[in-house]
């Protein structure tokens, strides 16, 4: 099953999104938070992101959801820290982080392939809340 990693500047945001998205998950599904800095301050840390990707890893790959700015750069850096073979099966979604995470978790929970999970997460950009 595709693993999910949530990268936010805030540890609370990343953990909160994991909790929320986890409500839609299967029991054995991997949804990892990589938020904030090791000392608890606001920011993103490429090493933490790369560790979270490894912890969420299976042969099905990992989808990463990011908030803004340095979350994108740190994730890009984190990919460079991984083995080539692992990196080939990691995708970063260009999606709203919360809506994208929930969509991705649901898609992954039915056993979809990485590219499908990515497409569903990115589809969350079009999600209407008020009709």
């Amino acid at each position, binding site marked *: 099953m595709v693993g999910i990693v949530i990268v936010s500047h805030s540890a609370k945001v990343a953990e909160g999104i994991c909790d929320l998205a986890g409500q839609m998950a299967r029991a054995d599904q991997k949804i990892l938070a990589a938020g904030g800095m090791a000392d608890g301050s606001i920011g993103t*840390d490429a090493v933490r992101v790369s560790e979270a990707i490894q912890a969420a890893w299976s042969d099905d790959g990992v989808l990463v959801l990011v908030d803004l700015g340095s979350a994108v750069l*740190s994730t890009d850096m984190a990919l460079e820290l991984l083995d080539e073979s692992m990196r080939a099966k990691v995708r970063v979604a260009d999606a709203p982080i919360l809506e994208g995470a929930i969509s991705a978790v649901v898609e992954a929970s039915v056993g979809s392939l990485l590219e499908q999970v990515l497409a569903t997460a990115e589809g969350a950009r079009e999600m209407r809340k008020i009709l």
Partner: protein
Amino acid sequence: MEVTRLNNRAIDLIGAVADAIVENKEFLTSLDAAIGDADHGINMARGVEAVRAKVTAAPGADIGALLKTTGMTLISTVGGASGPLYGTAFMRAAGAAQGKTELDGETVKQMLAAAIQGIKDRGKAARGEKTMLDALEPAFDAFVESLEAQKPLVDCLEAATEAARQGVAFTKTIIATKGRASYLGERSLGHQDPGATSSTILLATITDFCRKAQ
């Protein structure tokens, strides 16, 4: 013995860079408060203090190893976009300095070129977008020009620093199209870029250190 001596000097240089960033912590943060999220000085100071602690505890075998440690430490401690940007720059420069225990003009040129390319790759940015590249690219051009004129390394570094300062002044006259400052659009005019400023502080400190070490 030579390696030990050089490592000591390289560690002193890292210490001088850390001091300069810490001294300018409030200044960099105030620049970032105008067009960003007011954390550049705080983030950079946290990063360089971590680098200082790390390289003092485990100096590494050569300049390449030292720069690699510097880069890795910055990416995991800075927190903002400057972490992966400077982290990439130092790690790419480390590649160009691999196995070296002393530096000549040609090697420094390769290190600068690799560092700047790393920043461009990571930030998907180009000159003229109000970023650190607006200081570093003119600095590189000035360095190469002086090197080709067969000037001593310190003179090349001085020319580079002067060009970087002019680059910082130039960032006041342009609108940001990258990073958080880009949300401000025209309101970013009139403010110098914090990243270009911290890059120039780094270059100026390295130059000053090399001049004094002569």
